[in-house]
């Protein structure tokens, strides 16, 4: 059932229960706010979203009050503007003059709202109120009491999303302060989301603190590769370095959040990187050109038929997996295919975290069906059925391939990778375009942020180069082209391109639905 109202004179029909703020935003009228967040409850405590309503003698908090039938709401009258100036004067009254040293400056809602809605000079004649600064709420989060505007987004996040309730507000009035409850520690696996939620610079990431001014960074849309959830993230980088991950809204996958492990995983992106091809010359590993390394790969793999095992990792992107499938179909006919993966975790919950720590196991299943795992590989090598292993992705162990001749393409140099006969450098997901399929079948695109590290090559390209060394052309020239080719051959991916995946991705098989069954709908498109 719809409710009809007018917003700034414009007739608007919304679903029953929609707040005035959401209705106004839907109609294109921005209403400034601090405490309201679409993923949290509405305490209406910041008063920034006050609007006039024809059924109320006093202004109403638009985030809290639902649209009522036949009421005229005004979001931009002189009265409302006056109110906003007054509210901002209160909020800024004791706010420290910290912009120059505050990490939030440049992405601060208080700065934006003051500049857009007030610009009134200070009338404070006395000293500002002082509160504790640079307090460690946990080893990940630093709190600045003076900058806090007590919107309680952080408190509500811990109550409602993480459901751990570590935070509360102590004292009253101008002495109000966010604090961890006695006897508790702010250690829930999602705690760092309160840094993004904080509209001001009160809660800052201890890791990111003072590392880079936000306006220097460039941002690309990426996907977290730490578990099979595949949270949508922003990858912020500066001068070729990844500076931080931030969650990116994707209601199909992660809403507005990301777990702390995923957020901090950028720090391990370059751990023990394979920087250049390495060929083992007798016992001594020697750095080689890619061409020389591929020549060695050809000697090792050509004509070995079913003695060759191709081990695809569940951490590879769809494009690399597709190239691997073509490699097996064309250049390594008869080779057996296995899947390797990161070890399972035990921290799965009903929020985001998954036990499966691989970003693309679903992609492997869709492209290759159910593959034998590394235990089967170990047995095959032990039995002598497999003598040569081409490992695409470094998620195998030395025990899995004991006794076989190994060619390993990997991002990180694990012990097993270091022991290989030929080592080829792979790009991390921060360095090339690609896509992951999450456990629920959502295919999401990630974009290249930083330049490739060392001589690292994207998965699809490296596999194509291996095929070419073996005398076959996989007909792939870009990551986007690889996905298009995949979409032609794999029905679940029909119609998928990097562009059509968009910011939120698409569900496997969604391209197959040519026409939705005709059903009369109430709302116009």
């Amino acid at each position: 059932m719809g409710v009809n109202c007018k917003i700034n004179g414009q007739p608007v029909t919304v679903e029953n229960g929609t707040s005035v703020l959401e209705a106004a935003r839907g109609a294109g009228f921005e209403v400034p706010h601090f405490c309201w967040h679409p993923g949290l409850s509405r305490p209406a405590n910041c008063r920034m979203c006050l609007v006039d309503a024809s059924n109320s003698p006093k202004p109403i908090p638009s985030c809290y009050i639902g649209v009522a039938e036949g009421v005229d709401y005004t979001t931009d009258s002189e009265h409302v503007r006056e109110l906003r100036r007054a509210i901002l004067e209160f909020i800024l009254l004791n706010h420290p003059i910290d912009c120059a040293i505050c990490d939030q400056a440049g992405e601060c809602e208080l700065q934006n709202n003051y500049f857009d809605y007030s610009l009134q000079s200070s009338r404070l004649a006395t000293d500002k109120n002082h509160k504790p600064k640079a307090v460690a709420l946990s080893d990940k989060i630093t709190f600045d009491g003076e900058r806090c505007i007590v919107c309680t987004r952080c408190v509500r996040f811990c109550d409602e999303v993480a459901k751990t309730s570590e935070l509360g507000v102590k004292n009253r009035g101008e002495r109000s302060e966010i604090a961890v409850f006695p006897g508790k520690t702010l250690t829930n696996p999602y705690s760092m989301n309160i840094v993004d939620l904080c509209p001001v610079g009160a809660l800052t990431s201890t890791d990111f603190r003072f590392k880079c001014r936000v306006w220097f960074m460039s941002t690309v849309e990426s996907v977290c590769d730490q578990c099979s959830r595949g949270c949508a993230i922003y990858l912020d980088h500066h001068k070729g370095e990844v500076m931080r991950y931030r969650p990116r809204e994707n209601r199909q996958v992660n809403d507005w959040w990301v777990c702390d492990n995923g957020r901090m995983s950028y720090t391990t992106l370059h751990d023990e990187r394979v920087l250049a091809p390495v060929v083992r010359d007798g016992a001594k590993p020697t750095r080689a050109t890619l061409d020389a390394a591929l020549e060695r790969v050809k000697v090792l793999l050509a004509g070995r038929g079913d003695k060759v095992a191709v081990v695809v990792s569940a951490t590879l992107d769809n494009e690399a997996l597709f190239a691997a499938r073509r490699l097996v179909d064309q250049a390594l006919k008869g080779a057996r295919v296995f899947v390797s993966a990161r070890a399972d975790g035990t921290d799965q919950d009903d929020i985001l975290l998954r036990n499966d720590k691989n970003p693309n196991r679903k992609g492997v299943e869709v492209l290759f069906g159910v593959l034998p795992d590394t235990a089967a590989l170990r047995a095959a090598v032990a039995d002598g059925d497999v003598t040569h292993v081409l490992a695409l992705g470094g998620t195998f162990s030395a025990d899995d391939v004991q006794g076989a001749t190994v060619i390993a393409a990997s991002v990180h140099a694990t012990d097993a990778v270091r022991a290989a006969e030929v080592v080829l450098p792979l790009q991390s997901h921060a360095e090339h375009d690609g896509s992951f399929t999450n456990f629920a079948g959502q295919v999401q695109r990630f974009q290249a942020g930083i330049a490739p590290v060392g001589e690292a090559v994207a998965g699809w390209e490296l596999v194509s180069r291996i095929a070419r060394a073996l005398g076959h052309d996989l007909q792939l020239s870009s990551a986007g082209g690889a996905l298009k080719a995949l979409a032609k051959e794999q029905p679940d991916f029909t119609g998928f391109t990097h562009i059509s995946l968009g910011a939120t991705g698409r569900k496997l098989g969604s391209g197959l639905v040519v026409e939705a069954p005709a059903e009369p709908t109430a709302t116009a498109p």
Partner: protein
Amino acid sequence: MSEILIETESGDLDSAPMNLQMGPSHPAMHGTIKMRVKLDGEIVQKTEVEVGYLHRGFEKSCESVTWSQVMPYTDRLNYVSPLCNNVGYCMAVEKLIGVRATERCEYVRTIMAESSRICDHLTCVGASAMELGGFTAFLYAIEAREELWRLTETVTGARLTHSYCRIGGLKDDLPVDFVPNYRVVEKKVRSLVADMHALLDRNRIFLDRMKDVGSMTAERALQWGFTGPVLRSTGSDYDVRKASPYMLYDRFDFEVPVGSKGDNYDRYLVRMEEIEQSFRIIDQCLKQMKPGPVNLEDGRLLLPPKDEVYGSIEGTIAHFKIIMDGIQVPPGEVYSYTEAGNGELGFYLVSTGEGRPYKCRVRPPCWSLMQGLHELLEGYQIADIVPTFGSVNMIGGECDR
């Protein structure tokens, strides 16, 4: 010497036309322009003017800085009269935003722009005379310019690259002692200009080199898109300040001097008279202007005072937002035009509603002058290139951008 002369079989000197590359390192070419000259003996048959030696990418650079950060770049357009450029750019942005500077601001901008025009003309006339050997006149002109620069420095803080205007206002009001200081400078400059008149107006050598050299008709000049003193020397009285009065020019009583032949001497006389008219305009400004704010009361355009920036969070935020995001100019496009030292200086701006110009195109008066320059040179002697080129006052910074 004889071996470099080309002799024909008959023993005569070769009479075939000679191609000469004049510039860009020729002293009279300012290092910023080259002419390919085809000579028949001493006579210039054909000239091709080659510009671009001072191309700095002004227009492209503007697209990557905020609207306010363009200001120092405008100083370097016609660097002989930077304040005219400052005013022209500010007026263009203000027109796009839909605001108008305060009355006092416009008076101050007029005073500074006119004093810049005087400097422009002094430089041009002085340098032209010097290139003909009249070094004394040059020294007089530069001394007069120096007086004005010293005065300008007390107002803007800089001698050459002033960056004095702000979108919606000025860096500062005039200093309290500006008027008495100006009177002293005015007296000195006027006396020096009178000396220049005495040195040059009826100087036989100067007249021989300037009169009936580099002539053009008004019709032809308009066809080439000429503006400014070069156009007015031909008899056309087009002056943006009269034709389409901007700021407060409709309040001032001043004449637009015109020539009759469009030759070097007319251009000299027009410039010298415009100096006089600029003094008249400044006089009227000083009489008419009243105390008041020079900046608009608009926190979205102008930075808050420094004590607020360092002493209150409100000032800090406003300062931060204007510096980091740039002032917000509504989407749209505008052409705004002013009379600068060399003629119509136009700014064509496009905004997409972001903090930076989407496009900032300049119509530099010199650019059109360079298109038609060859017509002023062809048919005259090679030695006439120097005074003729000098009298159009080509400024590379503005022409090449």
